[in-house]
């Protein structure tokens, strides 16, 4: 079975068809993108707190630079970090090995989707270096702003002049990325349905696999109209059609609808995979079965369908029909219920458990706490349409979505990294530096995002390069809040280097894992050697149990691997 021979570096990083290698390629590419996005965040945060300062490593930030920085920070973090890390990386690493098979259903298609992803990254980076500068129209890319050149009003001379603009390149990059993720999603879906190990019924699959699949399918159905819409926007930019041009019968609001028709389900696409990791990690570390497996699953499916009916809550004051806004407000408030159920089920899982406060567990608990207490609850303010009139497009919204996305994407990914690192490298991450990294991230994330709530309530609108011209935003505590946020953000970004160094150092020189199943986990990926060979298993496992049979009363051990009779 394990007939594949060892390949060299070149082969492994460019031509390998193994799902783990492709996952690793995705991961490195995303690390590159995140460092760019993080650097942008550092520059504009510094500029906001100290407007006159030449930001080290960048220089003076002009309005144009500022718009470009915030736009690309948002795009990179939402599209490449969040979607890429949680669908592509997690799906590639985990799905085949967790369902007990050797590889994806279509390994070549998997490789092709990585190449598309790489092309999208190259296009995105190329867009920074266009003659007219980077894309500065906000990450939501609302036309007519994103059709023109953000207000220079220098006329385009030729088709090439229009084509080699940041607008075109960013849209192409996003299109390529969507195609890549669509192909990846189809691959995950088919792999999960067709290549499960013997005995691995649908309800014996670990939550992670379920969640990534639901997210992929949800992504597929929500992104369609936006792909059509992006195609139309490309034509608007390059050919001069008028789909979003009000003077031609087009409608700028149409793009907002198409964007958020994708954009809101995307929030759940991003949220679901971390919820899957959390289920696995929490159940494993509290040595108890996951509470209400089917219940969580049903709620997730309900939430996934509901999530397609709530998109216009991003547009309450954007000029949509106010009566429609009422309906969307009701659905928005309702969608909090299934997630409350899921979080309560997780709490019921740790309730009366013998918790092991390992590093992944710390990240998982941090994620649940921050996501529920602040991210989730502040959603109620914005879902209530009346308060959204005031809070829309203020820093309150910025704080809210950082509190929903950071705990899920970043904390969730870190939980997964610290949990599965042992498996895929056969080494252990340094625990001391892991703890330092966790506490620094936890404290300074709050230090960065919480002041934004207060700034937003004081009326500070988003995306303003220089707040000094607004007297009401320079009243006393507000500049201080901005400085606290900035300093915390800088420390937050710096503390991520601890992880990067820890990651690569441990991979090369870390301690070898003591056993093949260091977390005493049930799921299939821990029942093979670490790191798993090409092909994952020596002999294909046969599954007899669900994934969360911890502390089964009939057994001696406190865990019961899925492939143990």
């Amino acid at each position, binding site marked *: 079975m394990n007939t594949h021979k060892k390949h060299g570096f070149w082969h492994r990083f460019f031509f390998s068809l193994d799902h783990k290698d492709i996952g690793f390629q995705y991961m490195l590419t995303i690390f590159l993108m995140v460092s760019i996005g993080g650097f942008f965040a550092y520059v504009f945060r510094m500029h906001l707190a100290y407007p006159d300062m030449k930001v080290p490593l960048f220089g003076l930030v002009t309005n144009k630079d500022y718009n470009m920085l915030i736009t690309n920070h948002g795009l990179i973090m939402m599209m490449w970090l969040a979607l890429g890390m949680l669908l592509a990386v997690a799906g590639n690493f985990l799905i085949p090995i967790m369902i007990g098979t050797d590889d994806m259903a279509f390994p070549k298609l998997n490789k092709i989707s990585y190449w598309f992803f790489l092309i999208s990254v190259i296009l995105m980076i190329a867009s920074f270096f266009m003659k007219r500068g980077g894309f500065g129209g906000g990450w939501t890319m609302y036309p007519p702003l994103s059709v023109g050149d953000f207000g220079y009003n220098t006329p385009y001379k030729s088709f090439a002049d229009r084509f080699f603009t940041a607008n075109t390149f960013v849209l192409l990059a996003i299109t390529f990325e969507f195609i890549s993720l669509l192909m990846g999603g189809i691959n995950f879906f088919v792999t999960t349905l067709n290549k499960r190990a013997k005995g691995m019924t649908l309800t014996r699959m670990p939550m992670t696999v379920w969640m990534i699949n639901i997210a992929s399918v949800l992504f597929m159905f929500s992104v369609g109209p936006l792909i059509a819409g992006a195609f139309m926007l490309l034509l608007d930019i390059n050919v001069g059609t008028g789909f979003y041009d009000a003077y031609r019968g087009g409608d700028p609001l149409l793009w907002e609808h198409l964007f958020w028709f994708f954009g809101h389900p995307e929030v759940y696409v991003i949220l679901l995979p971390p919820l899957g990791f959390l289920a696995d990690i929490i159940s494993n570390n509290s040595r108890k079965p996951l509470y209400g497996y089917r219940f969580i699953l049903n709620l997730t499916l309900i939430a996934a369908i509901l999530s397609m009916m709530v998109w216009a809550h991003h547009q309450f004051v954007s000029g949509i029909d106010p009566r429609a806004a009422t309906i969307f407000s009701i659905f928005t408030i309702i969608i909090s219920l299934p997630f409350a159920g899921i979080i309560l089920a997780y709490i019921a899982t740790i309730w009366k458990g013998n918790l092991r406060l390992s590093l992944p567990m710390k990240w998982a608990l941090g994620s649940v706490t921050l996501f529920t207490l602040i991210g989730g609850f502040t959603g109620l303010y914005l879902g209530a349409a009346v308060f959204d009139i005031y809070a829309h497009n203020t820093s309150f919204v910025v704080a809210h979505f950082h509190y929903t996305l950071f705990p899920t994407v970043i904390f969730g990914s870190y939980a997964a990294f610290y949990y599965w690192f042992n498996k895929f490298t056969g080494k252990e991450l340094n625990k001391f530096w892991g703890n330092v990294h966790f506490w620094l991230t936890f404290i300074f994330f709050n230090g960065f995002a919480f002041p934004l709530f207060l700034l937003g309530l004081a*009326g500070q*609108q988003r995306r303003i390069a220089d707040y000094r*011209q607004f007297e009401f935003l320079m009243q006393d505590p507000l500049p201080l809040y901005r400085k606290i946020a900035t300093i915390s953000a800088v420390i937050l970004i710096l503390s991520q280097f601890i992880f990067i160094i820890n990651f690569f150092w441990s991979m090369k020189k870390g301690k070898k894992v003591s056993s093949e199943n260091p977390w005493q986990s049930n799921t299939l990926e821990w029942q093979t050697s670490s790191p798993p060979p090409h092909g994952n298993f020596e002999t294909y496992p046969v599954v007899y149990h669900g994934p969360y049979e911890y502390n089964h009363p009939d057994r001696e051990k406190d865990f019961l691997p899925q492939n143990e009779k």
Partner: protein
Amino acid sequence: MRIFPENASSYGANIDFIFWLITGVITVASIIVIFLILYPLLTKNKKRTKKEMYVKGIGFKDLKLIYLGIFILAVADFYFLYREMPYWTKIEESLPKKDLHVIIMGRQWLWEFTYPGPDGKLYTDDDVKSINQLYLPVNKVVHMDIQSYDVIHAVFIPNARFKQDALPGRNITRWVKMTKTGKFPLTCAEICGIGHANMKATVTVLSEKDFEKQLAKLYKK
């Protein structure tokens, strides 16, 4: 230290009320959730039998507490909706009888305010314009036709708790009734190009007499 800017419109207090209502409820909810997460952490070293630990949560009997939690949240949610819906109708859907009608036009990157001319009607030749200075009479219902010339802008008057996007090709009519005289900021809340940060105007709320004077001044120009 105040959390919100000073309220100067008739419906600002409603919006603030919804904020404090939700804050009150979620403070209670947060305390409960914090307890639920901390309790297992504090009691993690207790000796427990396998039977105690092996709880899978199948069926209504096991899950009833979670259903109760969802039900309580649902009640709270619908209570918010019940309280905020009338305000939404009042602010966004209905238009009280107007005393004055103005056009607010967003351009890259300035605000252009149009007042009816001496004939008292908008959209006629004698309309008068002022740039970046909006004068409003106090305690009068003002209808605003919000429009945009080029890209999407958003009118944001923090003190009035008022915000509305201005879209090219659409005329969106909303209303405001200022209750305090003074100078208030009006800003743009939707990214509109490199000048977005500089796109600010002043709302000057005047008593009725001063407002008439101000209009007369505009007519003279």
